[in-house]
């Protein structure tokens, strides 16, 4: 069965170009880049090249890029490193819709180090409450961690404005840009963030590689304390094949931003409009005028997400849901709850997230099959007459 993949915010296909550049580093160039001998040492230049490719995607200096093992590590290294560098004499400010890589860490640090933590609310469309944010920021030196784009709804936080305010206040600004990188333009010369997290597997590199941007001069303790790799900022022998892969993926992403903005966005819009038109009682979650070009989050009232997903899966369609049942937890996703989505819609939210590999045919396949699935489940529901 053909795989109609609409779950790119969960993970994305490894680009064939990426796999290709990685392979020689398993078979031929498997040396350690820190070695003095030529066999290992020659690998160093490929790592340097990859660092430049990553830096180029976000307009940073290569020396400001630290390779990590994933987005979660980047978020942990940035937030924890900044808090510890400030001897814990800071407030933590984040939002209630962050990925758990940020939210759980902030709660942990707040409890452990007795640091005050503010989780800024969002409105019904997922937009940040800026007044509340300003009040918290005025309370004193802070480490701020706010996401560039939300993984469930695609909604942007106004990171440009926020970073400027944080800088003005003399505080530290981290952004979880895991979902933004590769989908929209991010430029750290324009946007004054101090720290930024990105993850390979969301932009067609493999799982198990990430990077952190650290602006020159930012005080940061390291999370992995060990050898001198990454200029003492992250111990551990470099994961060369994956670093090379991430570099290539970033190069491809830079070339593909225009495609995301135009073609991918148009496919997403067609998918969304097609579903809304053919399935009654559906709503879009999140601000449709302020979100990633690849994401739509649609609620199907009176039916439950997991049963929708299994029905889609039987047709080869991969998507995901914020419903309680899919996560093994008993509550709907914290993002859906924070937005105050009415309970009639909350359990039936489905996220479709596209990528450069989606085509019109995929979108039409979903649109053609969705009404029958929805109708069948609604017929079965005690809440629909």
């Amino acid at each position, binding site marked *: 069965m053909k795989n109609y993949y609409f779950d790119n915010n969960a993970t994305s296909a490894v680009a064939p170009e990426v796999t290709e550049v990685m392979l020689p580093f398993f078979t031929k160039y498997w040396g350690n880049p820190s070695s003095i001998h030529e066999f290992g040492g020659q690998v160093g230049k490929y790592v340097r090249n990859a660092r430049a490719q990553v830096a180029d995607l976000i307009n940073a200096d290569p020396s400001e890029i630290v390779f990590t093992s994933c987005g979660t590590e980047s978020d942990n290294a940035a937030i924890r490193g900044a808090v510890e560098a400030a001897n814990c004499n800071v407030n933590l400010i984040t939002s209630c819709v962050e990925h758990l890589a940020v939210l759980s860490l902030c709660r942990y640090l707040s409890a452990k180090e007795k640091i005050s933590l503010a989780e800024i609310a969002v409105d019904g469309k997922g937009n940040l409450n800026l007044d509340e944010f300003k009040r918290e920021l005025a309370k004193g030196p802070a480490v701020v961690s706010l996401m560039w784009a939300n993984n469930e709804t695609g909604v942007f936080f106004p990171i440009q404005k926020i970073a400027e305010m944080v800088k003005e206040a003399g505080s530290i600004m981290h952004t979880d840009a895991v979902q933004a990188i590769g989908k929209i333009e991010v430029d750290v010369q324009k946007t004054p963030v101090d720290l930024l997290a990105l993850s390979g597997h969301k932009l067609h590199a493999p799982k198990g590689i990430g990077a952190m941007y650290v602006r020159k001069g930012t005080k940061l303790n390291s999370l992995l304390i060990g050898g001198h790799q990454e200029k003492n900022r992250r111990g551990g022998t470099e994961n060369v094949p994956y670093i090379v892969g991430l570099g290539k993926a970033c190069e491809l992403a830079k070339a593909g931003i225009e495609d995301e903005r135009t073609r991918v966005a148009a496919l997403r819009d067609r998918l969304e409009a097609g579903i809304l038109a053919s399935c009654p009682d559906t709503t879009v979650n999140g601000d449709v005028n302020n979100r990633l070009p690849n994401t739509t989050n649609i609620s199907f009232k009176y039916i439950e997400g997991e049963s929708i997903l299994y029905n889609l899966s039987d047709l080869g369609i991969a998507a995901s849901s914020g419903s309680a049942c899919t996560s093994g937890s008993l*509550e709907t996703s914290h993002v859906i709850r924070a937005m105050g989505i009415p309970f009639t819609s909350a359990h039936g939210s489905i996220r479709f997230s596209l990528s450069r590999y989606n085509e019109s045919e995929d979108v039409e396949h979903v649109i053609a099959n969705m009404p029958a699935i929805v109708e069948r489940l609604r017929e079965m529901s005690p809440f629909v007459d």
Partner: protein
Amino acid sequence: MWDYTEQVMDHFRNPRNVGKIEDADGVGQVGSLACGDALKLMFNVDEDDRISEVKFQTFGCASAIASSSALTEMIVGLTIEEALKVTNKDIADYLGGLPDEKMHCSVMGREALEAAVYNYRTGTSGDKILAGTIICHCFGVTEEEIERVTRENNLKTVEDVTHFCKAGGACGICKDDIQGVIDRVMAEVKVEESPEYEKPAKKMTIVEKIRLIEKTIDEEIRPILAKDNGGIDLIDVDGNKVVISFTGMCSGCNVAHFTMEGVVQAKLRKFVQEDLVVVEEKK
């Protein structure tokens, strides 16, 4: 992706007995849109008190739909008495097992069945009402329910209880209270299993049964109702049917029928006979 058995996926993809029965003899609904799953069960019975037709409607995940469908297959053709013996574990077993986190779907099936039987026998609503000693406020789960799933499934940890009836699965504030119920049940089970413990004799004469019912009402039920200035009178015992009436505060109370199931019936089943059904005489 859940590790669902083939039987679960089969019942999910091809659910049996979906639909409605107009003017069904028994109707029971549990769960809600807000909770994320709900089941409405409807059945008709023939002259021999056998379930002749059964239909369901479910809002929920794949395992909720599969559990509902399995339940309908299991009970059609059974007498009401036989059907009431179906436990949540039987439903899960029928499906070749459910993931731990999804056991509450099988509990929902058993609860809907009991609600429908209650409706059939009393003519009053069999829907579950949230009242009594609620322990988990997020999902509205009472102490009695937690005690019951703990006992019936031999649960040992708070996490188990959450998997079976959702209690403790949201904010988690009630986890200590749930642990308290588990500890109490485990202590009681230990006593019951000890050699000195004398189980109530299985076969009772009707007089013995009435005495035991009276004793239970006196010692176990009246003290609970008295806390709310309520009382209870035993009106009649007819086979497995116990007829009572509420007095004082309980009589006009809109949660009376919950108290009925959650307190009166639960205690009588525990101390007298497992298959007792208690109905209220309306004045």
